[in-house]
């Protein structure tokens, strides 16, 4: 009786694909050659449009852009694990998984260029818009997961957030409520180890972020976020658990922000270049490429085709984005309420009179 153990906490980390591109056989998920090549393709596409966006920003053709360089494996792996009817609730550094879930790239460009239409996704695309207030989206993830449960839908909510966002109260409330309600939600932390200039160890004293799941009575697992197979397996497992009615999971993907926080940031002010070099060696794309090559699933010919394909696709999306006619002034008012209120009507009329001279 006196000193008893009332809880034993264990948190595991999953790794399958190492830096040399070797995989841990028994843990390797069952994926067809096409699926594996598909993952590689997805990541290369992400890298391509991310680079393009940065270039456009320097040219004044794009607004503030948060690069995803280095985080492609998390986004490709989770996307592959998700089902058609699953909801995606992004933070603001999820362009990759958003595109894979059906958000047209030209709209994502439009959004970051300062056009609200960039968050008007096509009918049927189950994706929330970017959530700028850090951490706030965790609550939506819990809410959508509860909604799916209440409505008896065989689907899940997958909500993303960064390491920094785990410090916000909303992270806690969302995971705690998800635990109580057994919401159909997977909480994915893209732990890129930095929140602008604040490194993870100044963000929390916990050894891992995955272990925070112990506070909510839900499973938590850490994966090497630059290992697309580990990400896929863990996400798949979490989603299977939901489909089996076993509730939410916290998934921490340890990755690294290879770029600046955004194009408005200069990471060299606060980050050690050696750390950056360190992590460039762990590039998730490089790693998968090595695996593909060593397992004979790839060759330079495929490589060139893909490069070309990526360039063409990105250019086409840029064209589509830049061909968008400007929004009408009236759109400033059109979506405030289902039915415009008198003051909205009055103010819209005043603006239209002003712009029409």
């Amino acid at each position, binding site marked *: 009786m006196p000193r008893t153990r009332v809880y034993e906490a264990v948190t595991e980390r999953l790794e399958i694909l190492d830096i040399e591109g070797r995989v841990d056989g028994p843990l390797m998920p069952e994926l067809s050659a096409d699926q594996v090549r598909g993952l590689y393709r997805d990541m290369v596409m992400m890298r391509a449009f991310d680079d393009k966006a940065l270039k456009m920003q320097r040219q004044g053709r794009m607004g503030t852009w948060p690069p995803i360089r280095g985080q492609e494996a998390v986004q490709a792996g989770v996307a592959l694990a998700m089902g058609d009817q699953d909801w995606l609730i992004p933070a603001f550094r999820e362009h990759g998984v958003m595109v894979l879930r059906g958000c047209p790239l030209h709209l994502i460009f439009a959004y970051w260029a300062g056009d609200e239409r960039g968050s008007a996704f096509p009918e049927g695309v189950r994706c929330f*818009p970017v959530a700028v207030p850090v951490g706030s989206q965790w609550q*939506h993830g819990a*809410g959508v*997961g509860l909604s799916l449960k209440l409505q008896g839908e065989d689907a899940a909510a997958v909500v993303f957030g960064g390491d920094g966002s785990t410090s916000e109260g*909303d992270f806690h*409330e969302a995971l705690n*409520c998800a635990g109580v309600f057994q919401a159909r939600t997977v909480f994915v932390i893209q732990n890129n180890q930095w929140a602008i200039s604040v490194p993870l160890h100044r963000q929390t004293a916990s050894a891992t972020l995955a272990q925070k799941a112990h506070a909510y009575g839900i499973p938590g697992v850490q994966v090497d976020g630059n290992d697309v197979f580990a990400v896929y397996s863990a996400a798949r497992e979490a989603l299977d658990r939901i489909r089996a009615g076993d509730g939410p999971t916290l998934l921490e993907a340890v990755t690294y922000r290879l770029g600046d926080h955004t194009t408005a940031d200069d990471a060299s002010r606060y980050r050690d270049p050696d750390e950056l070099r360190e992590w460039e060696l762990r590039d998730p794309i490089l790693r998968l490429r090595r695996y593909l090559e060593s397992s004979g699933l790839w060759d330079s010919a495929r490589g060139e085709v893909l490069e070309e394909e990526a360039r063409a696709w990105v250019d086409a999306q840029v064209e589509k984005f830049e061909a968008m006619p400007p929004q009408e002034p009236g759109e400033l008012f059109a*979506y405030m309420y*289902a039915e415009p209120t008198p*003051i909205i009507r009055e103010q819209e009329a005043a603006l239209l009179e002003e712009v029409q001279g």
Partner: protein
Amino acid sequence: MKSDPAGSGSPDRRGLHAVPEAATEKLTIARAIRDAMRDEMARDERVIVLGEDVGIDGGVFRATEDLIEQFGPDRVIDTPLAESAIVGMSVGLAATGLRPVCEIQFMGFVYPAINQLFGHAARLRNRTRGGLSVPMVVRMPYGGGIHPPEHHSESYESLFLNTPGIKVVVPSNPYDAKGLLISAIRDDDPVLFMEPKRIYRAFRSEVPVEPYTVPLGSAAIAREGDDVTLIGWGAMARLCLDAAEVLAHEGVSAEVVDLRTLNPLDRETLLASVVKTGRAVVVHEAPRTNGFGAEVSALINEHAMLQLLAPVERVAGFDVVFPLAKQEHLYLPSRERVIRSVKKALAF
């Protein structure tokens, strides 16, 4: 528009329009609110209720009494103690097909939910160009008069009126309470529904048994008059009626405009009355500075300056923290203060 001295909220034109010959029953505001939720939950299975102690306890003011018995724990949900989660999860619930009616136990505890209310509930439709919307009602008892502990008496309506995207509704009687809440639940945008707790059970009045709506954005002439317009909402609309009654005996004919909805605001009814009487006194419990009375005063001056016979008077709380029980009476607008302001306007 028929005068309504008792302020029992017997149907005004718009109200009547919704219920021609309805059978009625005498209800308190609290019960009318409960019935509105019950009727809408019965009518529309997408409607759910969530909040702290809304289940077996029936809400600390019993505004959700018996709902869990009737609709079960999947539609009447006791949440953990987390206001940001109540509203934030409701954003997720509402955007994916449900119609959450959430309760914040007291308006004094809405602060933790502000980020979700303003940052998302009020913006999701606009952010997605109509792709996702948030048909959600956030109910909360507000206002003074019950001598509770700190943070249980505040009126924060002004906090919600400089941030577009959320409608703000404040009933002052059982009839409006039920009709406005049904409208709010059926509305496709977030609605903040403020409930004047001091009169939750202060009186009963006739309420149609059948569901009906009082449209959002329509003020009521709660009493007709010619010399001055008293403008209030919630419990203060009642206070205005009391003051008007006293003034009548002194030969002053006061018209009382019960705004009922602060956003959207029924400027026509408001301004028409002031143009008619030439004097206005706006009354609210919130502190005076930058309260919604300032907006009402500014609007009147912008649209009816030349018809004004005196400056618009504001009768409001002081610019101090809402006091604990023993000094509450010093803080709250009183009938005497309203009358004094009316006389000041008349003597201008």
